[in-house]
């Protein structure tokens, strides 16, 4: 199931392949039938098709559906943050770091301790934002410290071992951290102090208006950026080399687009993406009827999604635009050649773990804000689901990890009521966790390289 195209013709088609094809067909049909039944149920709950498997069919109201989507996306953004750590470590070292879920838990726990102390001192209520910053910083420090320590003690000696050994070690480390935290802090569930009212109230957000605003801001910022960059390009002496024989207005469109992209400092495909996103925002903002895009979100969820997005942007900047990021990408591609190029591979691996730990720490605080309770086992299941998200998005791929997280979160939220209940399965909320694993199996059956393609070195790809 490694999905390397060139092998497919050489492999004989065995009974296993036929069995897997049958499974693919069955799962695909189940999904399609479920979705169709859902659609029928939405159109008319008394429809015989809707009632065929689910006699008590009731349509989901728009608000219910939107609520599911929002909670799915907020949980998914946390999965995405944790998935980034898994993805980076897998890209660089080639094994699943089971202990990463516990790093997330340690962040959440240290956040709890700090917020509890601040609450006892009365500062949590009086300066909430300052307290929150302090809590986040301490959580980041503890998570990063835990990640770096585990790398130093448990993974560095095993750098050259056969692949399963570090994986098994990480399972041991995960157990150890879980139970050490249980021993230190006790097995009771800990709750974060209450969040201020202005954060937790339900707000009505008109996404259509938000989209239009974002489109407008994009235009203004883009124009200013273009003028600033275009202005500085005029002063660039080397730009005189290679004068065009024709005047600018006679250039074909493709060349003009290229020039605009060059002035802005981004690639042409990225420019095309930006323009399409802008057009989509405008269309959604103006053409979709107002009520559809009005969401009722709590301030907490908005915070979660925003902080996750900002962290992701920061990580993107680190990986794509800094020297350390370039070194990280190089080490992920081929450790030996990177070492030959003068990169300190050990240091870069430590940085990778540290960055993953930071993301997990932020995720821990967000979890604490959203669910307000942490337990020494809180890291286990979200950790596994986050790895699933990383695989779904494409292992080794940053954007894929985040997208996979959002996808998994929404699927987990939406699928029980949209897919499973119309198929007649009772008690679907219990099977939420099973949805995540089923998504993993489905993605590995249908598209093993993940939705966005994996980015691994040759040695890990085998």
């Amino acid at each position, binding site marked *: 199931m*490694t999905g390397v195209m060139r092998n497919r013709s050489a492999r004989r088609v065995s009974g296993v392949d036929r069995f897997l094809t049958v499974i693919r067909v069955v799962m695909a049909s189940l999904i399609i039938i479920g979705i169709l039944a859902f659609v029928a149920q939405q159109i008319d709950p008394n429809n015989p098709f809707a009632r065929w498997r689910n006699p008590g069919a009731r349509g989901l109201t728009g608000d219910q559906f939107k609520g599911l989507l929002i909670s799915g996306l907020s949980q998914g953004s946390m999965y995405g943050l944790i998935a980034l750590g898994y993805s980076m470590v897998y890209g660089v070292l080639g094994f699943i770091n089971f202990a990463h879920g516990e790093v997330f838990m340690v962040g959440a726990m240290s956040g709890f*301790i700090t917020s509890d102390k601040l609450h006892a001192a009365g500062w949590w209520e009086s300066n909430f934002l300052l307290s929150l910053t302090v809590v986040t910083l301490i959580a980041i420090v503890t998570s990063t410290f835990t990640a770096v320590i585990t790398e130093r003690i448990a993974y560095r000696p095993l750098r050259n071992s056969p692949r*399963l050994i570090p994986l*098994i070690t990480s399972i*041991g480390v995960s157990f150890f951290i879980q139970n050490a935290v249980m021993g230190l802090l006790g097995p009771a569930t800990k709750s974060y102090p209450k969040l201020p009212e202005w954060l937790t109230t339900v707000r009505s957000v008109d996404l259509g208006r938000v989209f239009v605003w974002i489109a407008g801001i994009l235009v203004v910022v883009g124009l200013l950026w273009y003028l600033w960059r275009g202005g500085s390009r005029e002063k660039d002496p080397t730009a005189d080399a290679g004068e065009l024989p024709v005047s600018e207005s006679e250039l074909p469109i493709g060349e003009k687009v290229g020039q605009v992209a060059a002035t802005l400092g981004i690639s042409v495909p990225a420019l095309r993406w930006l323009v399409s996103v802008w057009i989509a925002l405008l269309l959604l903002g103006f053409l979709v009827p107002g009520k559809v895009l009005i969401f009722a979100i709590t301030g907490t969820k908005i915070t979660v999604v925003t902080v996750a997005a900002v962290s992701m942007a920061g990580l993107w900047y680190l990986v794509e635009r800094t020297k350390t990021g370039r070194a990280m990408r190089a080490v992920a591609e081929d450790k030996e050649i990177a070492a030959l190029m003068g990169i300190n591979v050990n240091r870069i691996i430590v940085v990778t773990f540290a960055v993953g730990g930071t993301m997990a720490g932020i995720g821990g605080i967000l979890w604490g804000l959203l669910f307000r309770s942490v337990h020494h086992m809180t890291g286990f299941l979200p950790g596994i689901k986050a790895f699933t998200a990383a695989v779904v998005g494409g292992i080794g791929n940053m954007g894929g990890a985040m997208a996979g997280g959002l996808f998994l979160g929404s699927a987990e939220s939406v699928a029980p009521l949209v897919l499973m209940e119309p198929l007649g399965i009772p008690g679907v909320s219990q099977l939420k966790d099973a949805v995540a694993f089923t998504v993993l*199996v489905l993605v590995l059956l249908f598209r093993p390289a993940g939705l966005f393609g994996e980015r691994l070195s040759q040695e890990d790809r085998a």
Partner: protein
Amino acid sequence: MTATLAPSGSSVALDWRRALLWGGICALSLVSVSLIGLPVGMNKRILIEPVLSLGYLCLLWIPLVFGYVATTVVVLEGVEARKSGTADLLAGLTAGLMGGIGLTLLMVGLDTVNIRKPLVNWSPQLFRLLTFERGLEFGIPVWLGICAGLGLVGAVLHQLPAVARRVMSWVLFGVMAIAILEAVIDDLAEGFHLEWLTDAMYYKKGGTEGLTVTSAVVLALVLAALPVVTGGRVKAAVDHYRDAPSEDRRRTSLVLFGAIGVACVGLPMILGGIVNELLANVGLFLLLALGLNIVVGLAGLLDLGYVAFFAVGGYTTSVLTSSNSPFFAPEWHFGIALLFVVVMAATAGLVIGAPVIRMRGDYLAIVTLGFGEIVRLLFLSDWLKPYFGGSQGITKVNPVELGPFKVQGSDPRSVFYLVLVFCALAIYVSWRLQGSRLGRAWMATREDEQVAEAMGINTVNAKLMAFVVGATMAAFSGAVLAAKVGSVFPKSFEILVSIIILVVVIVGGMGNIAGVMVGSLVLIGILGGPRQPGLLQEFQSYKLLIYGALLVFMMLKRPEGLVPSARRSRELHQDEYLQDAWLGDDAESEEDQGAPS
């Protein structure tokens, strides 16, 4: 090609940085162990009355080990080891002393500040334990002295001859083992009517347990004399066994197995109920471990969802034999149910194995983990409640009646015998498979799948067979569990079980039947299974911590396990073997060159 890095025999000046680093880690370990709750939790268990309890032992081993580790010198092949001198003793002393300082700070902290809110074990009990109930003025110098002394002893160990080291380890581990295994030894003595011996050894008054000081001293002397008297004779015997030709070896192995078999059949008659219950547990998990040994150890497939097969076996048996089964209650006999268990297990093995066959090792682990969780969630769900009882499970599973024998949970001896029969079968099957064509196909697939395919092995079929055989063994174990407990609940089939069995297989020795038996006996017997307590009930809360730490330690130091298979050892220490071969060739060629001239 030998090089000397330092003039031989000279001792180097003390490396302060290294000693302080190790000392810092020692201090951190001591404080962490105290705050995790190990000393207070284990304090009830007395090893040598009234001197030593398990709680203090949890703290005492740390400076000793760190004193030893801080002064370890890595000896490169061909380089003469530098002699340990006073510098090393100082290093050990420093490491221990810093540990003592750490404890001092902790004691002072306990007295002054109260941070019980996050740190649950920051309690007066810990303070009383650390200060020996006599206050700070007594506690601080005592701990400084003890830690420094133990660090010194650890450093001295390097300078003692090997015999002395062997004597020390015999004495320490022997006395501890005898103290810990008090329940088993008591039972055995009762069976053989040797109560006078155990009454003399153990402190039986007042309901506490543990050795008396005099008996500890006597035992220490006896155990110290043993290695001196037997000398290298045991080692020589083991080497003789290993070098012997295969027929002799096979004869010896058969005799050994026969002896173990007789002991397994005869002992439960003598032992009491508690120990029999423990042995039945050990047997149950041994059966699981044998199955996982085939999947992980022989075929190299890291299956983290192994508990799914365990669940399938348990539920199949319950559904078919219980009167309380919701949907389909035929109430068949256990034997007939076993046939169906085999069929269901094979199906489950195929269904779970087929999608994962072509995946990378890591993905296989996660996907099987996912499958394990899906199976548990399905058994727990309300959707399948009409068939499997949901969270209430299926109760009233009939005890097994095999002719005149009745196997039920209230009679642990009968359960043990049933488990013994299954284990014997599993051991026989594993042993024969290991030497068969299929077993060799598994080992080839484990080492390099592409080369195995190139050699004409059908790796897909081999892997599927591994899953099927492993699943069948796990399902048998599930069937015995259902008969023993009399009911099945989804709570017994969590991922924890898979991981504990994995630890047992790995710590015992992957791919090696004897290793798995030893691992199961030691780990499940002493520490206990996922929900069942072992010999040391006090370990119940810290069991998983020790399992995790043990797994990490074994992976770092000895990944082939306690009783390794020769192949695995060679695989995992390939670099060292290659270097040995390189140096061996060089030494020979030097001799050849040196002789004629």
